[in-house]
């Protein structure tokens, strides 16, 4: 990890780290593919190709060595995160637009790997949900059985986008139902709808979240990430969701629902832990993670967007330099604030 001194020598090149991050995403991707079909794998390929092409074009324009930067795998990780946060049956050009924007504007125009102040994948998500709000909110309904050919046709725009493709995420459905009923429906009644919700959160989606959690824990065990950001993220989310749930269980979903819904797990372990756009000091990481968790809850529950993780992470990215500055650990042997 990138951290202040003391440094320990470790066999960790960028490409090694990025390969392991991709491996850690595999359990989540597997659950995702089981849930919505192989379309997600197609999206991963489309996003990866777009990212590598955009990266190669930008490197060429700047006269930087192509091979070294393309092989580091950072563009592929960005692409995978984009594909995993976009609706699985989104048209191909939406994923390509987001990926190209992430690589060209959010990463390379700021100076390339290690220089970007904002998480490129989350920039892609924010840009696309602002520019194409309708397409970014159309998620296939769970249990929709489409063959691989049909799914590819939908992604490539060869087949019409039917109603079954235009559902809301469980998180979004919960918010909309509560808002429309205006207090006359309780969360428990809504959760009883087994078409959308499973035992804890969205039906099937809870297993995707569990897959990300598994991959995240493995990354922590491999020391690719430290415990600070995910713990603070999850802790803040549980505290604020739990507080409101205890205050009014009929109108606010329980913390477990929020942990297993939307981008919580992906955000806590894979997005907020980005070493480039996040904080580097231990205390800074705690503040960063807690802020992202808190903001994600506020935006997803009280805001107008389907999920809040992307905007929460981007807002905390803005604060990261200041947080780092204010949380510098004392120099060894000196008193704090010497």
């Amino acid at each position: 990890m990138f951290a202040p001194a003391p440094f320990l020598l470790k066999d960790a090149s960028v490409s090694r780290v990025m390969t392991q991050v991709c491996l850690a995403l595999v359990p989540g991707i597997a659950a995702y593919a089981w849930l919505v079909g192989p379309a997600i794998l197609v999206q991963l390929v489309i996003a990866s190709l777009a990212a590598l092409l955009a990266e190669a074009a930008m490197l060429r324009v700047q006269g930087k060595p192509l091979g070294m930067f393309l092989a580091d795998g950072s563009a592929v990780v960005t692409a995978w995160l984009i594909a995993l946060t976009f609706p699985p049956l989104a048209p191909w050009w939406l994923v390509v637009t987001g990926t190209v924007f992430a690589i060209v504007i959010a990463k390379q125009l700021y100076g390339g790997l290690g220089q970007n102040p904002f998480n490129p994948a989350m920039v892609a998500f924010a840009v696309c949900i602002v520019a194409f709000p309708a397409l970014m909110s159309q998620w296939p309904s769970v249990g929709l059985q489409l063959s691989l050919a049909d799914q590819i046709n939908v992604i490539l725009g060869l087949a019409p986008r039917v109603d079954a493709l235009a559902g809301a995420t469980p998180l979004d459905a919960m918010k909309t139902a509560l808002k429309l009923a205006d207090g006359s429906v309780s969360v428990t009644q809504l959760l009883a709808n087994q078409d959308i919700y499973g035992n804890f959160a969205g039906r099937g989606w809870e297993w995707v979240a569990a897959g990300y959690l598994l991959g995240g824990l493995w990354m922590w065990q491999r020391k690719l990430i430290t415990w600070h950001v995910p713990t603070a993220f999850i802790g803040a989310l549980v505290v604020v969701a739990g507080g409101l749930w205890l205050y009014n269980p009929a109108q606010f979903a329980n913390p477990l629902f929020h942990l297993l819904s939307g981008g919580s797990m992906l955000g806590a372990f894979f997005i907020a832990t980005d070493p480039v756009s996040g904080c580097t000091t231990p205390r800074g990481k705690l503040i960063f993670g807690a802020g992202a968790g808190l903001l994600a809850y506020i935006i997803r529950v009280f805001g107008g967007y389907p999920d809040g993780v992307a905007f929460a992470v981007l807002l905390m990215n803005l604060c990261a330099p200041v947080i780092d500055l204010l949380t510098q650990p004392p120099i060894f042997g000196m008193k704090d604030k010497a």
Partner: protein
Amino acid sequence: MITRDEFKTIAGNGIWKQNTSIAQILGLCPLLAVTTNAVNGIMLSLATILVMALSNVAVAALRNLIPHEIRIPVFILIVAALVTVVDLLFNANLHELYLVLGIFIPLIVTNCIVLARVEAFAAKNPPLQSTLDGIFMGVGMLWTLALLGGMRELLGSGTLFGGIDMVFPNLQPIQLLPESYPGFLLALLPPGAFILLGCMIAWKNWMDARAAARAQTKPPAPVATAGCH
């Protein structure tokens, strides 16, 4: 009278070297708000050119009569009177466009470009030079706003010169991209204006640096990024 060199300097400053939008970064508020298409940008720029030329000539003519201590209020009064004239002209002749541009025509009074040129140029130079300065500063604003508006429009909705029928009733906007183009809404929103303006500033700095490298001189200092509003 005016020499050839003086004319060249004034024109070069206004159009490129001290361009209001991409070198001085002044007047960002109307720039962000009205450049959702090229026509709006051009028409607001034309109104601003008119105000700048007239206010510069008025201030230059009166520059020896205005007491130094209260010059700013006097300048503002002169500019405000001229803006009122332009505002009424737009309302009478281009009413639909007047409704689109809305508050940004009266707000030309507070546009820092106008006051900046009056204070920095017209108060110290004869009327002819001041008029030219007002016109060329406005032309600099005109082409940048037209370019920015055109790019935002093209990316955002795939058309060019949308709303031109409000100025010339027998002309129609050009549909450049196919009808099925979904429209990149971000380009029409303020972030799109900021991103594209940033690209234009980078382009200007790049062109200047290249010219400077060719002339074997030191590149000009990067432009300040602090605007006024």
